[in-house]
């Protein structure tokens, strides 16, 4: 059995009387692409915030990259990459300046940053645009850049929170090529999405309903178990009975 990069045991978060995340238990292995699905309000974001050390859990236990999420949040933060829902690099800085800034934040030295920056721009085919402010670049390119920046400090695990919102299917497919590449290099990918075609690209998928994990398996196995033709059908079948919906 492969090394477990994420392992949770009855992880729970309550806000007053409201239980946002209700005793979820699951594991993610090294190098896996793990799809974390659920309707809006199902508790995905809260769960992700606990795993990234932004939010303290109410009860249960979990380790991320081998560190405890109660006591070792600083160590967790050093070992994970994160790319959020909305595009989140600095629009008024150039690609190079963004890379340099985030490299600096993660404590990389100047020589390393310069070398990585050149390589990254080359791989993304952005060499010419390296000194252009991001506000002038298309969203798809910015997302690819943000993903690469999240991997800058070579984390074992990267969290992607709806990374491909708002772009066309072709651009999304290209983005997923990057994800596959990272996974092939041994990086574990934890990704949330609302696009069911993307769910098919994942090694394993979990579907959250009302704070609980309603299903967890490979896409093929899930479809067989629930007798659904597509992931879309399966998702609607599971999420429709939800008591909480919307935000």
């Amino acid at each position, binding site marked *: 059995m492969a090394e477990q990069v994420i392992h949770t045991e009855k992880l729970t978060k309550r806000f007053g009387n409201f239980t946002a995340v209700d005793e979820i238990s699951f594991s993610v292995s090294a190098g896996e692409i793990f799809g974390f699905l659920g309707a809006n309000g199902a508790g995905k974001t809260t769960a992700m915030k606990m795993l990234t050390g932004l939010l303290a859990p109410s009860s249960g236990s979990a380790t991320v990259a081998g560190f405890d999420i109660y006591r070792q949040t600083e160590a967790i933060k050093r070992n994970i990459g994160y790319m959020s*829902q909305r595009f989140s690099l600095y629009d008024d800085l150039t690609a190079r300046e963004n890379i340099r800034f985030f490299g600096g934040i993660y*404590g990389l030295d100047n020589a390393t940053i310069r070398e990585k920056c050149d390589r990254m721009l080359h791989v993304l085919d952005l060499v010419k645009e390296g000194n252009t402010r991001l506000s002038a670049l298309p969203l798809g390119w910015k997302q690819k850049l943000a993903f690469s920046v999240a991997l800058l400090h070579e984390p074992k695990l990267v969290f992607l929170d709806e990374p491909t919102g708002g772009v066309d299917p072709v651009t999304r497919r290209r983005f997923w090529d990057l994800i596959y590449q990272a996974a092939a290099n041994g990086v574990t990918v934890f990704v949330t999405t609302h696009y069911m075609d993307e769910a098919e690209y994942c090694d394993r998928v979990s579907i959250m309903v009302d704070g609980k994990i309603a299903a967890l398996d490979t896409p093929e196995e899930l479809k067989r178990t629930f007798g659904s033709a597509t992931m879309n059908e399966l998702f609607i079948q599971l999420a429709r009975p939800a008591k909480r919906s919307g935000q």
Partner: protein
Amino acid sequence: MKRFIGFVRKEFFHIMRDRRTAAILFGMPVLQLLLFGFAIRNEISEVRTGILDLSHDVVTKKLTDKIFSSGTFVASAVLNSGKEIGKAFASGKMNEVIVFEPGFAGKLQRDGTAQMQVITDGSDPNVSRIVTGYTESVVRDFLREKSNAAGAPVGVEAVPVMKFNPALKSVYLFVPGLMAMILMLVSALMTSISITREKETGTMELLLVSSLKPIQIIVGKVVPYLLLSFVNVLTVVGLAFFVFGVPCRGSLALLLAESLLFIMTALSLGIFISSITNSQQVAMMISLAGLLMPTVLLSGFIFPVASMPLPLQAISNIIPARWYLVIVRAIMLKGAGIAVLWKETLVLMFMSLLFMTASVRKFSERLQ
């Protein structure tokens, strides 16, 4: 430390690349000071005066000459009847009309008193008050000369001396207020906007997930504005001195140190604002309506605190600029030292500490 320098450099990029931000930061202090210094003045250089002389005798003639020879009053019209007065004011050409009663010299001779009426335009009370004061002082002079010539006793005379600002220059009044206003604007408004902008664009999340500690993020955000605010203090004090001749009679070092303290207070207010809202719009509204307005209206900048109604006086106590103004005026104009200003200094320190603690509380609450 290297991470920190990188953070500060990024912050400077933000400021310089947004033209509006850069314009507000560097243009505003200079523009404001020049505007306040040149355009807004309480002293009046030219009082357009009309004379309605119903007596036409030697004394009214002499008094009229005396008034116009002072240089401040300019003969604007000679009126022939009371009916013309209203029209003259309505046209806006007149600041003042002086009316001598019929038989002025005779009454003065016989009864020792005669009436002259000074009519001013009450729609502008400030100008009215000043003009009336000027006129009274000219008449007083005239009477003194007259009785000196006659050898009669003058009676009691009050001789006013305006200490610290003998010429009553209004720029002396505006410079300290302006410093408070600009520092409030730059420090509180700009920091609260720049922090909430990171929340809006989602970059704050990215920073929090990185191994930077929240306190490092806050300090990194604050340092550039601290530096820029300090540059603004130097600009304003320098301009005030070289362009308007406003002195700094006390210790310049103390003035700068107290300004730094006030900047800290404003910055902690800015951080506090950004800890209670996630939107740039709201942060801007709170800063403008909640900080800038009181700084201008309730701090004693324009309206003296002592003449406010009691509830407003009480409110003015919680406005940092009120205390800073006392400090700046005392140091610049009166040459005072820390010995008389320790109370105000402590108040500012206490306020900074309070808002800093409140924001840190609020910040960690969010993470729970």
